[in-house]
């Protein structure tokens, strides 16, 4: 079975935007892969003029929130690293020959999504006098304009990511496993992993193919 990989376009986000951006992307992908009966929920972004769709399964929402919290805490420990990746993988569980000290089942990944984020913190780049009360209004105006430009650009990038998702799921369907009957909500098991910036997605794929084992990096 082929493992289709989709590398989404990198998003330049600020610290406080990470949660909303990851919610939007992760929920959109899972909604497209939750092929059981779902009742979609429209979520209007607070930071952006965007509406994305959740599959309406509470467990999915909970897991995504936990993973996002984990991601934020990890990147805070590495403030010097700017590029980070979140990987959403769909897999099948297959039985394998039992062996000593090994599990009886293995995960076979048939689709992986890589969400690329570049974390910026504009406050770090602020001049010292901007924190004072009497700073130049012109500088304040320029920083507001910069934030507005950043927000607009990020919103456009998120839209581009969403259209990229739509295009990918519409073009590649043959690799999808059979949908179990009477499936409700999530039809395929998935996992969300956080990649370190030192390891690229390609390296991770190579390791996965070589070992055939699921590895969770943290």
């Amino acid at each position, binding site marked *: 079975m082929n493992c289709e990989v989709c590398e989404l376009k990198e998003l330049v986000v600020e610290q406080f935007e990470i949660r909303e951006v990851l919610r939007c992307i992760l929920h*959109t992908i899972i909604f497209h892969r939750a*092929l*059981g009966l*779902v*009742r*979609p929920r429209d979520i209007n972004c607070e930071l952006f003029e965007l*509406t994305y769709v959740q599959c309406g399964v509470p467990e999915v929402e909970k897991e995504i929130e936990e993973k996002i919290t984990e991601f934020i805490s990890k990147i805070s420990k590495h403030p010097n690293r700017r590029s980070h990746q979140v990987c959403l993988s769909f897999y099948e569980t297959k039985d394998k020959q039992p062996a000593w000290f090994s599990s009886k089942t293995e995960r076979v990944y048939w689709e992986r999504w890589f969400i690329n984020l570049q974390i910026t913190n504009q406050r770090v780049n602020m001049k010292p006098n901007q924190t004072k009360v009497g700073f130049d209004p012109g500088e304040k105006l320029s920083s507001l304009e910069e934030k507005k430009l950043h927000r607009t650009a990020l919103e456009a990038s998120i839209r581009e990511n969403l*259209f990229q998702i*739509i295009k990918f799921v519409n073009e590649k369907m043959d690799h999808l496993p059979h949908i179990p009957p009477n499936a*409700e909500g999530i039809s395929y098991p998935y996992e969300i992993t956080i990649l370190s910036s030192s390891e690229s997605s390609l390296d991770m794929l190579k390791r996965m193919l070589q070992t055939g084992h699921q590895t969770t990096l943290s």
Partner: protein
Amino acid sequence: MASTQNSETPATEQVITEIFAKSLHIILESRSPYVSSRNYSLDQIPPSPSSSGGSPSTQPGGSRDKWFNLALRECPAALQNSDFWRQSNLEPLVIEILLVDRVSGTEKLLERWVVQYETRKHPGTGRKSKRTYRGATLLFRSLYLLVRLLPAYTLFREMNSSGRIRSLGLSHRIQSFVNPLTRSEEAEMAHLCLTPIDTPFGRLKHSVSYLSVVDDISIGSELSTPMSTELIPDYVGSPTTDPLKRFQTLPLGGSAPICVQPGRRHSWSTDRLGSLNLSPCSLPTHSDPQRPSIPLPLSEVQKGKRPVGCYPSSLSSPQKANLFRCESAPVSRDSERNQLVRFGELPSGVSLPKEISIGGDAIRYLDVAKLPLASGSCVGGSNVQLLDLHDSDANYPFASDDNRTKNYEGERSLAAIVGELLRMLETAPKLQIGFEKSDGPDQNPNPAHSGSRTAANALEELRSYMHMRDSILSQSGSHSLEPKPEKESNSKGSNSEKEMKERNRP
């Protein structure tokens, strides 16, 4: 059940039919504000779906909304039009989303969705109905998201956010044929096609042509197009519209805001109100050259920027002042009477000043009894009608206290009287000509030069004019004057001067 030309199996036919229905449902659910406002909340939906699963047709009741494993809310608009395309699956389903201006009745095409079944040239190479169903399931996930990513959804959201009836609204039109787009529509619209759903003997295609930019239309609060910031010089209460304020802040060499043609009533009369063209101004379209905007003839005014019924800002100053005067400032009886007084029209009991000519320019003091009520004079012309300063019945600022008790209606403040007098003095022709010929009178420069005027300045000016008048009267004596003793008028003038002085004293 609608049938296709080729021999699709009944199961496939049903799937195809439901694909059309689901497409209509998904699109109209997110484009029909009336419908969406009446949808029940998700909390009312049972948390777990029916256990039978699979195709909704096998479920008890066979609820359509669960087809393709996508449970949707009710959409009456879709149900009303569901029979339209049931005639034949071979006919395309064309859904046009329109932006409608309820005031003008104009429509603007925002989106055109086309769902079309095409038979396969080589039958037998298609997929089975099960795979058709799965393909449709995947497609509708994307379609559900896509309708929310397109710009028209923003309008839909804004319209749904408020229950007010707006002048702009979203409408839809369902057809079984595709009208060719105009050149302008082709130019400003983008196109998207989803991956076709294969059937055993054909395939279903979903495509959309949509207006890529609708940002120029703000629906949030009856907006038309965003207005650029403008400075409104003739705002309500500004010196150019309010004579009282004008007296306080006089521009250098300023002309009267109102120009009354001879024979016409002044601009503040109620008769003139109805004849004015008060249609809202056409707002400039704020368009980005790189992003086309929707050129709708909208008549709404942006909320918060200008009140409804804004006034054009590009009129000539006299008319502009007229409009603002009539629409913004309340036409009170006092102000109207002030103008009547200004132009020599006084109610009974008040007489106009006499007529005096100075050189080639005539300053006329006329008796109100001899004037028709509707008469007026050109303020900017050579004839200026002034108040009769020596009439005992006149309510002049310089008159004695006894006369001030006689008012037209209510009370006229001193500032109002002085303001009118000052305006008359300002609009009077320059007295340099007269000054050259006359001897004696103080050659007062044109009083209407200073930026701010006080009562003292007006008094001085009046005094100068009185001196001038006296000198002229003493010299010529051939001017037509009312047979009133000069002493009496002079005394009144002096009384008025004393009065002004007393008032000016702190």
